[in-house]
């Protein structure tokens, strides 16, 4: 139903085989293969980071740290065809750690949907017509940032990163059933926040 956009599709056979070969070459010391792996995954990883730390500078730094760790840990990866899932897991750990670290330092201002002001939305109840695409994207990211950590995480993985249920289950280390129920809860939370902004009864 929700096919990922072309640049995010990683599980088709051709792409999967290419990635597995690149991983093996990289494990054999081929740096160009590593470059290619970075280029194939950088949009996904950068956007994942951006959802956790907000500023492009911080997200770039975080994404680079993720790839640096991946490069160093790559020799320990036994199943080359699991690279993307392995990288997701590694990236999630990095994002969580960086988020906690920044939170402790007071990097994030506390965001509540009560603080989000969208006068056009509230006035007209017609978001699609009034909000520019960029404004809407920005609003969505702000709403997600204000969600509880566990719900935010699953909604980012499924609806922004467009991972399958199985990939999310593998990345978060939780059973498939838990993924489904958590996702439903997170999407309801998101819907309710939109509803609150729209002033819908």
């Amino acid at each position: 139903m929700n096919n990922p956009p072309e640049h995010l599709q990683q599980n088709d056979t051709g792409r999967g085989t290419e990635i597995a070969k690149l991983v093996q070459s990289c494990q054999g010391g081929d740096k160009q293969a590593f470059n290619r792996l970075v280029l194939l995954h950088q949009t996904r990883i950068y956007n994942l980071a951006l959802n956790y730390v907000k500023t492009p500078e911080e997200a770039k730094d975080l994404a680079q740290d993720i790839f640096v760790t991946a490069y160093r840990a790559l020799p320990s990866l036994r199943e080359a065809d699991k690279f993307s899932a392995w990288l997701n897991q590694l990236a999630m750990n990095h994002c969580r750690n960086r988020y906690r670290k920044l939170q402790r330092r007071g990097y994030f201002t506390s965001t509540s949907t009560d603080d989000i002001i969208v006068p056009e939305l509230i006035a007209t109840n017609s978001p699609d017509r009034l909000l520019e695409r960029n404004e809407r994207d920005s609003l969505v990211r702000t709403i997600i940032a204000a969600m509880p950590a566990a719900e935010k995480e699953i909604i980012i993985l499924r609806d922004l990163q467009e991972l399958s249920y199985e990939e999310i289950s593998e990345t978060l280390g939780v059973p498939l059933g838990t993924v489904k129920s958590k996702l439903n809860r997170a999407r309801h939370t998101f819907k309710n926040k939109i509803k609150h902004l729209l002033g819908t009864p």
Partner: protein
Amino acid sequence: MTNPMNCTTVQELFSALADGELDTANIARMESHLATCRHCTREWRLFTESLAWLHEVKPVPAPPDLLIGIHAKLDRTNPLATWLHDLFGSPLRALSSMAVIGLAFFLWVSQPDIATHAPSNSMADAGGVFSQSRTAANPPARFLNPPLEITPAMNTGSEVWTNNFATQPYRLPTLPTITPDLAITVHAPSRETRAHLYQRLAAQDRWRIHADSDGTLFIFLNEEDIPHLQHTLAPHLLTMTPRSSGGDGENSLRTVSLLIKSQ
């Protein structure tokens, strides 16, 4: 006749319905409920609309210098951390191993007849043993060939970089602001060839050049500058493969490998 669903059950299945994860029997039961329940119908409409908002969020393109920054970070590796990692594995294992070593050392120096009353030749012997350890006299290979140091010595528009390619500190022109669409790795047969190439390439401001500690040169440039690069490398270039590879939408930065012949 199938059992009707209540509002709670229906709303618990919104996500599965939206993702096409429900079987036909459950879809029919949900549709039957939605046809008669205005509240759930309104909630379902809001649910799908908010989901559409989420799915329409456009991914932000990764910064063009993400890759070059990764290599810069890989080269800034703390040699001690690398060595500890090589020796012990994970940082946790390194820490615990160091704690054990530290404890052993503490216990050793705490023994009065060894630490405080040991004759001087015993200390010398201890030093002799230590000097044969991997730490001091027999370091890992990477220490024998020190990692590349790229150190901006000044920050006044142009920068002085020192590294193991250039024999002298090399003054680079101000780095151009380019959005590269090609990443080139140069494989040169010898350190001298690499040093020579590095100096030739660094003198140009058409591209960014980066050298890592393993002796690989990375050149980031725009595609229209390839002929210029080929001209610059003409006396050395053996093969250039592939001329273009990949090129897939967002990830349009492509990689090309150059093989340099021996001088």
